[in-house]
């Protein structure tokens, strides 16, 4: 939790997307979203909500950082995050009821997502609003990148479609659909392979 000195924006972007990507660095925050990664559309909506909530919460935490007493900062952060999550939930309920029903309780679970808390604690609490916003935004995007990739693999192998559109080969009779991919174990396997892949690439990068 060392207070970072002013970092150039470019570094914040690279950190969030790749170098410090929350998922394969620490395997954090997958809980709330992994369950909906069997359909690409649900994942995209869920990840967009999460990214926006992360960015705006970080900015709000940062705006309030001079007034917030240290001993209650966790509670204030939780409150701020919950506030934005409820707003997202209400917007979905009012303007996209089908999606709201599909995601069920998972929208609410964004509150306990460790990534948002982590970014608020580690960065937003000691930095000005604008960099905090960028930091939150790109941490969220880095996270979304991996989950959307997982969902593409799962939907394609499990149902032969992407975003509901039938894919050539995979939706024909030639491809025996792997139903297990849409079921929970598929999520574990895909995520494990994804982490394996990313870590191996990183190792190569470090060597060269």
């Amino acid at each position: 939790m060392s207070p970072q000195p002013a970092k150039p924006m470019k570094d914040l972007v690279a950190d969030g997307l790749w170098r410090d990507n929350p998922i394969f660095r620490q395997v954090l925050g997958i809980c709330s979203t992994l369950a909906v990664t069997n359909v690409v559309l649900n994942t995209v909506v869920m990840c967009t909500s999460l990214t926006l909530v992360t960015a705006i919460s970080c900015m709000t935490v940062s705006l309030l950082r001079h007034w917030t007493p240290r001993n209650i900062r966790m509670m204030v952060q939780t409150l701020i995050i919950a506030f934005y999550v409820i707003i997202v939930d209400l917007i979905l309920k009012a303007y996209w009821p089908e999606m709201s029903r599909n995601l069920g309780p998972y929208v609410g679970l964004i509150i306990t997502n460790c990534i948002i808390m982590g970014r608020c604690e580690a960065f937003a609490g000691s930095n000005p609003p604008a960099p905090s916003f960028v930091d939150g935004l790109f941490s969220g995007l880095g996270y979304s990148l991996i989950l959307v990739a997982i969902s593409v693999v799962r939907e394609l192998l499990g149902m032969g479609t992407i975003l509901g559109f039938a894919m050539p080969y995979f939706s024909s009779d030639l491809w025996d659909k792997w139903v297990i991919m849409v079921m929970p174990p598929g999520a574990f396997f895909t995520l494990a392979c994804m982490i394996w892949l990313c870590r191996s690439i990183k190792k190569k990068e470090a060597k060269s």
Partner: protein
Amino acid sequence: MNGIGSEMWLALVTCFAAIFTQNILLTTFLGMCPFTSVSREVKTAAGLGAAVVFVMTFTTALNYLAYKHVLLPLELEFFRFILFIIIIAAFVQFVEMVIDRYSPKLYQNLGIFLPLITVNCAILGASLFMVIREYTFIQTIGYGFGAGVGWLLAILAMAGIRTRLNESRVPEGLRGPGITLIIAGMMALAFIGFTGVLS
């Protein structure tokens, strides 16, 4: 009398379903963060698991009462996210204080896990599922307990497997979280086998 009896039976079924067919960790992926990080040793896993069972049973029940008797009459259902978190945090704090005061020994074993629990998504998740599934009070207790036991079971099994794994040669990139997830996947596969036992 018959009403109570059938309700108890329903609660029992809900409890077993929550442990096996709808295991909160293996089918809804809640509580993954501590699952991957605290499952290295059987002893710590058991401690955390026991704390989860305890906290989950009581917080789902408390949240049920708060939701049914406070939020619903006031038509403030959307407030449940905030209220549930506050109740969970307050409950954990309270238990910590009580244990510290009356049983320092238990506190040493269990106490360090309690703060970890407030941010465990499985705890909030169980309360949210309870609302969505429209359980009755007795069912809620059965569900909260079952979900906790299910989580305990999963993390214990994982810790057991992982201590064995220390000896084996795992590909470098897969070490740590990677292999944990693969094992979790296999466990989930096995748990699917329970489907149909309870319906």
